[in-house]
């Protein structure tokens, strides 16, 4: 999605008669200035704050904060959660996008809305609903306890809550892309005798792969960063059910600001890293999305 203008287009725009005037230069300058100011105040200031605080005592304390056993456990838990959640939601996103983009059927808008819904549901409620289901007083609570399954206040609960919150991201990315790309190539593949899976892997997947990568990256970033929903179902057991975002809060509340922001900066870096990889891949393949 991080597609920019093509060089040729920009070059053409710039050489247009009447385009290199003072007014247009000023407009361009103003637009860039407003954008940068807006982003600086809203986006970059907090980010700088995160890193400044994390490094406020120097690099060594920053690095040492990752040696803490609980921090390591939180990082591991977050990675495990993401490793389970992201593939599941990727499969779901692809399946849903296939059904929605490739076929016309009744109730499609409702389905799309249901997929969007988790974005609109307050994370607190997202956590609450699983407590209502799997809590000891919930629908399945007693049965679960009798059979010694723990869902909430354990890894499965964290995974499910994260699944809920990150469910829309891959699908949302793929649906418009696949709708826009149309069915022609798939239909051609089918008429040439390809099976469904072959059509998908050989025809559809190569077309949508960058949209998919972007969706997966967003889904992953959100999965690692989810706070509200996980907070409700986690039980906050130190070193066991605290994910990185929860651990940030814990450290912050222990007045361990360096540690808290170090973990936060790690989350930020993870996100930046994935975004950089995505940009690099785009650049290498000359791909511009949409």
């Amino acid at each position: 999605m991080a597609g920019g203008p093509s060089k040729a287009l920009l070059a053409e725009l710039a050489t247009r008669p009447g385009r290199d005037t003072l007014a247009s230069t000023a407009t361009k300058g103003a637009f860039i200035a407003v954008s940068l100011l807006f982003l600086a105040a809203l986006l970059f200031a907090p980010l700088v704050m995160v890193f400044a605080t994390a490094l406020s005592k120097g690099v060594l304390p920053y690095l040492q904060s990752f040696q803490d056993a609980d921090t390591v456990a939180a990082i591991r838990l977050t990675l495990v959660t993401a490793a389970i959640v992201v593939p599941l939601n990727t499969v779901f996103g692809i399946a849903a996008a296939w059904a929605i983009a490739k076929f016309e059927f009744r109730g499609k808008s409702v389905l799309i809305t249901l997929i969007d819904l988790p974005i609109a549901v307050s994370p607190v409620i997202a956590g609450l609903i699983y407590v209502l289901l799997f809590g000891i007083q919930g629908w399945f609570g007693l049965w679960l306890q009798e059979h010694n399954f723990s869902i909430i206040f354990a890894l499965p609960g964290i995974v499910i809550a994260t699944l809920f919150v990150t469910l829309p991201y891959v699908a949302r990315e793929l649906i418009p892309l696949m709708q826009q790309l149309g069915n022609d190539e798939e239909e051609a593949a089918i008429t040439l005798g390809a099976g469904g899976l072959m059509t998908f892997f050989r025809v559809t997947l190569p077309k949508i792969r960058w949209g998919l990568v972007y969706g997966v990256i967003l889904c992953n970033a959100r999965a690692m960063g989810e706070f509200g929903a996980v907070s409700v179902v986690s039980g906050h057991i130190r070193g066991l059910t605290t994910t990185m975002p929860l651990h940030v809060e814990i450290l912050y509340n222990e007045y361990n600001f360096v540690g808290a922001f170090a973990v936060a900066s790690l989350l930020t870096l993870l996100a930046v890293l994935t975004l950089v990889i995505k940009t690099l891949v785009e650049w290498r393949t000359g791909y511009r999305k949409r």
Partner: protein
Amino acid sequence: MRTAAVLAMLALACLAGCSTDDQGARVELLNVSYDPTRELYREFNDAFAREWRERAGETVRIKQSHGGSGSQARAVIDGLAADVVTLALAYDINSIQERGKRLGAHWQSRFPYNSAPYTSTIVFLVRHGNPRGIRDWPDLVRPDVTVVTPNPKTSGGARWNYLAAWGYALHRGLDGDWSKLDDPAAEAQVAAAREAAARFVAEIYRHVPVLDSGARGSTNTFVQRGVGDVLITWENEALLAIESLGPNQVEIVVPSVSILAEPPVAVVDTVVDRKGTRQVAEAYLQHLYSPEGQRIAARHHFRPRDPEVLAEHRAKFPELELFTVGEVFGGWNRAHEEHFAENALFDRMLRASRRAGAR
């Protein structure tokens, strides 16, 4: 690319799998506690594990969970398998008992001192040098003073703050004589005092610009963000804040009258019976009363029950007139009913002050 993703996932799964401890014969306890006890239990757990190994030859590992007292109680009610709970309010444990039926009704009498091995009180934290000249409760309602305290609806500590202020005002209205509360002859005076107390507390909350959801949040708001002139907080929190945030920023002011905060502890019967950990769980809580436990508590700024240990730390814990929830409010359940429940005094107070503010 797909293969890489699969490999990465497998690697993660291995990582997760390998990390599971396989040391076998050992006991695990889960202590579900509230925010300000993080440092206390970190040290105490180690001490108890050492003690238990010597005493019973068993390795015990204590897992800790911290959070807002109310939400921790809710987690236990919803099935968080806590062997012991060490919360801010007796009310929260009462709730576990009533709603979750997870422990016996008489939990509070199972351990000495109302099952509260350490106490604290509510004090003020002011900026270095006390620029506003805060001395006692009445200073909080001066027009030029802003107060930071958490939301009593979400924070156990905030309820202590609220009750301390209320108790002070009542104490003043009753001319310092608690016995009038039970004296039918003083009914009129008590009623007037109650009303004055309500007005006083409402006035304090009108001076609050930020209601954080927890005690630590308030401390951060006050110290880090520079909001407000006074922070009402636990004594242990105030001492910890000075210790970890630097003595040159803030200092403690002890009011003339305050509440005796008694954070209770309890064994969760259903859990320990299922897991078979009752013995170690009870020993764990009992150890809090031992001289070692008391010293650790004192080191972490909680007032120890043990008079000897208290004497050792006298300088840290100045004497002041303290009242208990039981004496003044008739126990936590009543206090909750009257003050904090839905549409109880606190809610009404806010609504009223909003109308006043709107006008």
